[in-house]
């Protein structure tokens, strides 16, 4: 009899990255409730457009359906999830137990995150956990696979689960010089792939990538550049002014404003349409530019409750069809 991990192979994302493909991931937020219909509806919009889809874990500290449960529903829809796991809501026991459950349900990709502080969410008076930080979680999951042990060193029954371990990087956070070094720590901890924060400042990202390449990190980890279509000039300004650790260059704000400059303010439908079209075009432009930056192995397209934008973005950027999944 073979161990379960021996006959349950790696996921699609791992296989494509190992094959050197330029990979594409998307993002899907689970519903603020328990009905699976919304996930199935969103699944139809991303199927065949991306190689795997991130499923967020109580993003912005707002309670939603579990990322593992929603990830399983995606698997049933024929879509490979990247299950996000934050350190905010569970201690090391809860996380490891959930990881075992996720592996049993067919989850292969785990993205390890600190998690937004609960003060941003809908339960701001909650206690936070942060028993582990994101780097320690990366280390824990990578070691589970490598050595088949829990954090305490005890053996995992059935051997190491075949997780492909992801982590995030924010090239736009401060201190800027610390960012590549912190990325190096995630790589040293065992990260297989990295997804970055939204990139709306390509020169700064380019500079970040130069350091990453100089350090040789791109050879040890697949770095997926984070992009996303803007929905309006208001959204661009909001991201610039209100989202912690974000930089949005003036170009994107000006372009989004220009998109509606000839449409009267009263014509809200026409403005929304013009914005969305320009947002998609700008995202395509971003992907084309980022693809040429040395060390970038793929793109992570975050559409934030606008899954319908994924296909036109991927299509326009020449990313379709996606390579075969088996």
């Amino acid at each position, binding site marked *: 009899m073979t161990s379960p991990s021996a006959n349950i192979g790696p996921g699609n994302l791992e296989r494509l990255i190992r094959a050197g493909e330029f990979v594409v991931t998307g993002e899907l937020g689970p519903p603020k409730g328990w009905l699976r219909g919304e996930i199935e509806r969103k699944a139809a919009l991303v199927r065949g457009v991306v190689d795997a889809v991130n499923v967020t874990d109580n993003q912005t500290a707002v309670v939603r359906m579990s990322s593992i449960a929603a990830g399983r529903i995606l698997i049933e829809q024929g879509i490979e999830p990247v299950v996000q796991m934050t*350190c*905010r809501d569970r201690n*090391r026991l809860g996380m490891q137990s959930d990881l075992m459950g996720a592996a049993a349900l067919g989850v292969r990709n785990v993205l390890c995150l*600190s*998690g*937004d*502080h609960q*003060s*941003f969410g809908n339960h701001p008076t909650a206690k*936070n956990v*942060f*028993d*582990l*930080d*994101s*780097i*320690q979680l990366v*280390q*824990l999951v990578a070691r589970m696979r490598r050595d088949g042990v829990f*954090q305490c060193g005890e053996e995992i029954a059935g051997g190491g689960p075949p997780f492909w371990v992801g982590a*995030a*990087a*924010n090239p*736009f*956070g*401060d*201190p800027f*010089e*610390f960012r590549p*070094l*912190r990325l*190096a*720590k995630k790589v*040293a*901890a065992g990260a297989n792939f990295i997804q970055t*924060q939204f990139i709306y400042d390509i020169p700064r990202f380019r500079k970040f990538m130069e350091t990453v390449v100089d350090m040789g990190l791109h050879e040890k980890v697949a770095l997926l550049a984070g992009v996303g279509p803007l929905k309006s000039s208001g959204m661009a300004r909001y991201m610039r002014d209100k989202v*912690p*650790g*974000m930089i949005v260059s003036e170009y994107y704000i000006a372009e989004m404003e220009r998109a509606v400059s000839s449409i009267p303010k009263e014509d809200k439908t026409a403005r929304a349409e013009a914005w969305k079209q320009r947002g998609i075009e700008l995202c395509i432009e971003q992907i084309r530019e980022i693809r040429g930056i040395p060390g970038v192995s793929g793109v992570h397209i975050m559409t934030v409750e606008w899954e319908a934008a994924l296909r036109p973005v991927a299509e326009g950027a020449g990313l379709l069809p996606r390579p075969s999944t088996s």
Partner: protein
Amino acid sequence: MIVAERKPFAEIEAMVEGAGRVLVIGCGTCVTVCFAGGLEQVAALASALRIATRLGGKEKVIDEAVVERQCEWEYIDPLGARLDNYDLALSLGCGVGVQALGERFPAKRIVPGLNTSFMGLPVKPGEWEERCQACGDCVLDKTGGICPIARCSKQLLNGPCGGSQGGRCEIGHDVPCAWQLIWDRMNALGLRTGLTEVQPPKDWSSSRDGGPRRIVRDDLQLPEEYRD
């Protein structure tokens, strides 16, 4: 020091409501230094309570006392006889002081007039900041003398989360990012390589998570014949 601030007056008023005779007890140590429970604050609160209860038509006897330290038996024991004259003691000590009074005088009702906030320091007149969470396993040698447990909103041990920008924490523009401070200090000290090693998960058992804490030192215990 321990930093505290006074509870809202209405809350204190409600706590003393059923008592006819109240002793307000201040503390001469930490809460005096942070202007929350010293001689002057005891006097101010006692007068406010006197006025309020007189105006409310049910005047109470509100007396005042201040001890050097509410957290040590030798300073609070002398209060014993005096406390017999009161229905209730309103402590303006920290949470330790309130409990010390309760433990020493179990028959007396003791209520807190302060909210104990944190261990910290006055960074400038009228402004205090947290510096230590008493995790019981100090990491300041690794972080340039700046504590990520007390000063990072997520208590991260491996560097700043993605929300750090311009030296500020993601939770608010008046909160400095501890990891920016650590980074700057470690660079100034020429020790940045210390920040590139992956720090393992912390052992929280020495912190509150391990249950109530206690220190026993045999070298300081009284010989058997002198014990109570």
